[in-house]
């Protein structure tokens, strides 16, 4: 790679100074902090949080034998309460075999097809969302702890660049809203800081559980951009960056959002 010219660096510095930039650590707030008290109460109480239905479904699937191996997730990993505690807090992680980052859903899919020998589940399928929600729920209350893995750094940087690049017919970047205007409202909606700490989560508007990628896809469609493909490196890079940005914040899965 060529070194950027001095004028370019100067430009970049100028641009940095002109925008509001990163959120100060003391100002970071979960999306749930922006919600109406009723919605907060719905998330906080497991008997009213609709996401708990997927946690339950996921718990069932965790113990179910599948595929040529005839083994269940529990057959290899035992009790999820112990073996999956903290897992979601450190994903996306480096996949040693490919040398690339893999998100939690990707890892679960990999276990299913390669280790259980079962047919792949679609990314947004109810079953895969349920297992992911169940596994992520085992980290509820734990701080986001991105791995200190230098081989992930270039992907985090790609994620940061995607986050700050204007896109779509409306020519807006994620950062335009989520770094610079998180205390504002887009029509009646709180813009929020886009922390990924509650996913998969139940959205009242979807009347279902949904993934972080589904949320990001909606934001891209909102600015009239062509969304990245499901499971793509771009989405995983964005997630890596968002998790780094949310380091230390508590996992809330399953979150509830309006």
């Amino acid at each position, binding site marked *: 790679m060529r070194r950027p010219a001095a004028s370019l660096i100067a430009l970049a510095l100028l641009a940095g100074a002109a925008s509001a930039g990163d959120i100060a650590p003391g100002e970071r707030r979960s999306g749930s902090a922006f919600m109406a008290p009723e919605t907060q109460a719905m998330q906080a109480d497991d008997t009213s949080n609709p996401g708990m239905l997927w946690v339950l479904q996921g718990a069932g699937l965790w113990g179910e034998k599948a595929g040529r191996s005839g083994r269940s997730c529990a057959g290899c990993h035992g009790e999820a309460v112990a073996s999956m505690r903290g897992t979601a807090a450190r994903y996306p992680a480096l996949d040693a075999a490919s040398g690339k980052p893999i998100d939690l859903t990707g890892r679960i899919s990999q276990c299913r097809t390669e280790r259980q020998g079962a047919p792949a589940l679609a990314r947004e399928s109810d079953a895969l969302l349920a297992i992911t929600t169940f596994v992520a729920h085992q980290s509820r209350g734990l701080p986001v702890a991105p791995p200190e893995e230098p081989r992930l750094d270039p992907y985090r940087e790609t994620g940061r660049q995607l986050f700050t690049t204007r896109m779509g017919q409306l*020519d*807006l970047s994620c950062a335009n809203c989520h770094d*610079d205007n998180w205390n504002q*409202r*887009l*029509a*009646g909606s709180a813009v929020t800081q886009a922390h990924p700490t509650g996913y998969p989560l139940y959205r009242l508007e979807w009347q279902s559980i949904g993934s972080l990628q589904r949320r990001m896809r*909606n934001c891209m469609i*909102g600015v009239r951009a062509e969304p990245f493909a499901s499971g793509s490196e771009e989405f995983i890079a964005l997630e890596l960056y968002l998790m780094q940005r949310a380091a230390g914040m508590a996992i809330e899965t399953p979150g509830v959002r309006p």
Partner: protein
Amino acid sequence: MSTALALAWSTLALVAGVSGHARAQEGLGQESATNRQVVPYVVTDDAITEPLAVQRGDPALGEALIGERHRSLCILCHALPSGVERLQGTLAPSLAGIGSRLSEGQIRLRIVDMKRLNPESIMPTYHALPASARIAPGWQGKPVLGAAEIEHLVAYLVTLKE
């Protein structure tokens, strides 16, 4: 309560959706969303003094269009004097009284291309061939609004005197 909140983002999210187009065609007729051309214009100081379209805009159609947030998007960011407070955007200054603060030509330039005045602005450029990254196929080569639509908005906004 929650439906009101949920509605807000879904409108922007559904901008690309079929329902938005259908409504746009029923609504203002004259110009279909798929047949928008960019017309040339002259900027004098911080204004475009000449109308973009041959016909003058109609303030009533402008008011209707500003209310169609799938299509004009204005009220996602701006408040309007007539709007329901809790559904109004706060990303931009209120448009109440804009007709006394700015001239017709100044309003026109701000809708056509706010970034000409402030390159960092988050306000979309409404009347130019879009040049951003990853534009969805359905929106490529099309301005956000056509000349006649912008004239309707201008005709309405000049009537907003405080």
